[in-house]
């Protein structure tokens, strides 16, 4: 290029390429050790940590579960999970509203995953940014509590389009809120015809065993 002039450089590069590379590295790391990974996404307070606790209780004593908690600040969730005696790491994302795959990759490299068969990654609580950034997970789970309203699949289509499981939580509260489960089911299926939908209440236990069975079956299906 001649000095003192101007020019156009054709680039055509994905802005997410470094994130995609890190996600690919995570996938390779997990597959090499036969670990099944779930990326849990929802609004704050929809029940991600509670679902993790239910999974830990279900597989208690068998071991094999590791947890990575993502939050903008605090170790509160990691401390909650640590009480169950499993390996857990907290990622504080500070200014970022989702877990960056590069950050997850370095955390996973520090962990002892030799006995891990199921990795649960709890993303930062929101329905926008985590949907855009794959973490190399085997399956993505979006949780939607009935108190949030039934229009969420219309407002946040990307997360519903890219998730393998939709878990409708806090169904014991359905009598007290305006939430049309069929409307959510229709909208979620329109965004992603292959999505599997579960309705659960951690308080009453309704629907939980079907969901936990499914997650266990998905994990087992990956094992070679």
């Amino acid at each position, binding site marked *: *290029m*001649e*000095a*003192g*002039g*101007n*020019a*156009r*450089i*054709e*680039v*055509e*590069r*994905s*802005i*997410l*390429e*470094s*994130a995609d590379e890190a996600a690919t590295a995570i996938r390779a790391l997990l597959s090499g050790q036969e670990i099944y990974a779930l990326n849990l996404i929802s609004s704050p307070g929809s029940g991600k940590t509670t679902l993790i606790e239910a999974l830990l209780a279900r597989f208690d004593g068998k071991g094999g579960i590791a947890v990575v908690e993502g939050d903008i600040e605090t170790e509160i969730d990691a401390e909650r999970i640590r009480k169950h005696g499993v390996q857990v790491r907290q990622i504080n994302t500070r*200014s*970022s*509203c*989702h877990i*960056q795959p590069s950050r997850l990759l370095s955390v996973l490299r520090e962990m002892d995953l030799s006995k891990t068969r199921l990795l649960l990654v709890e993303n930062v609580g929101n329905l*926008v*940014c985590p949907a*855009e950034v794959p973490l190399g997970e085997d399956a993505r789970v979006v949780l939607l509590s009935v108190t949030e309203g039934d229009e969420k699949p*219309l407002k946040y*289509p*990307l997360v519903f*389009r890219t998730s393998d499981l939709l878990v409708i939580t806090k169904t014991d509260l359905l009598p007290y809120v305006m939430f049309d489960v069929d409307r959510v089911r229709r*909208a979620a299926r*329109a*965004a992603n015809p292959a999505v599997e939908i579960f309705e659960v209440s951690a308080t009453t236990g309704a629907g939980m065993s079907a969901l936990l069975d499914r997650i266990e079956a998905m994990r087992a299906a990956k094992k070679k």
Partner: protein
Amino acid sequence: MHELGVANDILGIALSEAERNAAKKVTSIRLRVGVMRAVEPENLSFLFGHLARGTPAEGAQLEIVEEPVRIECAACGISEARSFTFACPRCNGPDISVTGGDSLSILSLDVDT
């Protein structure tokens, strides 16, 4: 605030491409942004401008080419839309598949050499 991470990645790529091409200054950056990406252009430009201070990309303009979603409607064929939709924007038919609209890439840089 996810624009902050996007702005940071744009700056990183722009600076590395400018250096590779021995450019002195980046004056404009053309981006293709899918409508599914929920990127707010004004917010992105503001954050980029802040991050680019003191670099060869200081003052560079972001030019955003919007990528629509592609709708295949069983009743009336293919069309495009500027947002995700659950019914065909042309005939209101419900039997549609919506794809695309998820690009997030740098197309080209205008530079001073």
